[in-house]
């Protein structure tokens, strides 16, 4: 139930009643600053600050948050270790050259680049998690409508959002039913079961589509898909800290990059 979980956390977040635009500004703003900053300090700082904000005032369970971070962490650590030995430049720090065709070299340049990538991934992931864990999809739809994203697109997205959970439940049921009858016993059997699961799911979604049209007809469908009327106002006490935070982050990034420019 992972995908339900993320949306559930957002629905129950203590930041639920802050205008989604404010939250999006914080998330996307820090994401951009993390990406453009040439210094690892900025994404690291941003990641730590946003993590603290998520866990303390937004009251996301630290355990769940930790588990979530673990996903990208495993992937990133492996990539960064590779980067250490792939990139080059600067003085050699450590070298391992046991046989002719194995030559592992760690240089100052590769170390710096590797750490920068690591910090950037950390900062950017946390920025995205911030949006995911505080802003439910339903609020984002609302925001998109205000941002003049084409209505047809939003309507489709809303229907998809609604049906993802239904099909997921259904797929789970079919999977369990197959598993109970030893459907995934051998690789060959797994392949057969999986294909029939996909087929069943296709038929189900086809039927659900027809039912959807019927349900909409029953309620006088005439092209209008209502958007949620109530939107929280943009409040100074939430937007000001966000702007201030982004400014500070930007200034730190600028200063760090200026120093780095001077360094060589």
């Amino acid at each position, binding site marked *: 139930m992972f995908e*339900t979980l993320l*949306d*559930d956390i957002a*629905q129950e977040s203590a930041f639920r009643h802050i205008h989604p635009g404010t939250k999006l500004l914080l998330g996307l703003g820090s994401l951009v600053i993390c990406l453009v900053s040439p210094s690892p300090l900025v994404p690291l700082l941003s990641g730590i600050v946003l993590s603290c904000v998520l866990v303390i005032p937004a009251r996301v369970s630290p355990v769940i948050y930790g588990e979530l971070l673990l996903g990208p962490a495993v992937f990133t650590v492996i990539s960064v270790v590779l980067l250490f030995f792939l990139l080059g430049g600067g003085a050699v720090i450590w070298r391992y050259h046991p046989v002719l065709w194995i030559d592992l070299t760690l240089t100052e340049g590769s170390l710096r680049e590797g750490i920068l990538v690591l910090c950037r991934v950390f900062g950017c992931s946390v920025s995205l998690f911030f949006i995911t864990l505080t802003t*439910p*999809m*339903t609020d984002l*739809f609302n925001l998109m409508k205000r941002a003049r994203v084409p209505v047809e697109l939003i309507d489709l997205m*809303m*229907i998809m*959002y*609604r049906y993802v*959970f*239904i099909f997921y439940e259904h797929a789970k049921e079919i999977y369990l039913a197959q598993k109970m009858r030893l459907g995934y016993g051998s690789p060959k059997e797994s392949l057969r079961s999986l294909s029939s699961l996909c087929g069943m799911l296709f038929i189900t979604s086809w039927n*659900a589509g027809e*039912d*959807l049209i*019927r*349900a*909409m*007809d*029953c*309620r*006088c*469908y*005439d*092209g*209008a*898909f*209502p*958007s*949620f*009327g*109530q939107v929280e106002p943009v409040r100074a006490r939430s937007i000001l800290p966000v702007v201030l935070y982004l400014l500070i982050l930007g200034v730190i990034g600028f200063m760090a990059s200026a120093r780095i420019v001077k360094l060589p």
Partner: protein
Amino acid sequence: MSIILEARDIHFRYPREGREVIRGISFHIRKGEKIALVGPNGAGKSTLLQMFNGMIRPSTGTMLFDNKPIRYDSASLRDLRRRVGYVLQNADRQLIAPTVWQDVAFGPSNLGYDDEMVGKKVADALRHVGIEGFGRRPPHQLSGGEKKRVAIAGILAMDPDILIFDEPTSDLDPAGSEDIMELLEELNHEGRTVIISTHDVELAYPWADRAILLLNGEILREDRPEVAFGSPGLVRKAHLSVPALLDLSLELGRRGYSQPERKPRSVLDMVEIIENLLHGSRWNRVPGTITVCNVDEDRRSLASCVASREDLAIGTMGTRAKQRAQQEQLPVEFHYGVIDKCILRALRGKDSLILTTNSMAGRVTLRVEAYCRESGNTIAVIPLKPAEQEPPAATKGNAGEGEGGYEE
């Protein structure tokens, strides 16, 4: 009462399918009636229901709404569907929007109301079914009963005259089913015609004004429930079962115990019959009283009014009454079939309090009076008074103590 829906010899077969699903059905439904369409799976219940709001057009024959033949152009259909609300069996299939608010607003928005009007309709509908404050939640986070309520709210927001429910309680637990049936009762009392399809005879039997037994696309029997379900042969033919109360009454009759003309529809009726058999006369104990409180008008703290009355059992009728009881944390004993249960309690010499809404307030007196007329008992229905004026309950309330033979 005037006829609102009528079928004249309708037939229907699905295209590319040889078998006729509906084979010559004629009937009519009057305004404000409670109709149960009962039959086994595949009898054609859903098909027939979908003809009521023009989702399916009969192959031959005419459907009439408000004494005019249904027309199948899109403008007429829209008007028909606004006035004939249809709640699908599977709430998941009916809820289409990502939040409860948007889903309930779907009908009103498509009817072209302005934003303010839509907001008002949605708020009213949500309050009506008792799920205010759910507006932001996505449907997949709700329980089965809550989803059903959202689906009903979505239809109520269009303010229909007729409400059609396809298997309204099929995926609910017993308590959830009773809540929904109570809601249907409330909607009916506001003047709406309610039609349900079901194969649960125990559910349909006490509820419906009229039952239509359907088998293989034909009407097997159409009558008051006690008659429609009263013939074991017919009921068996329709793959149904005789309701337990009716079965008991029939069995007592077969054993030579005289049975009244009117068959028992509720436990209260049955108790009356058994009492008569045992004592030969009516109950000779001093009956208890039924206190009524209209929560829409009475803004006092109910908790303080009932605090001194520990013997008082509380029943709620209507969504707002249930909410009020919850707010004040009153211990509610009866949620469904409240009046009958309170009469039963009064017959045991015990008092009860009914919390009710505006639309259902008059019903308590009517039902109790009707019962008293029939049975010759006298049960007092009194409005709720403040705590200090409350008559001492002990003198009356203790009369039935120690019997304890019957418990709800």
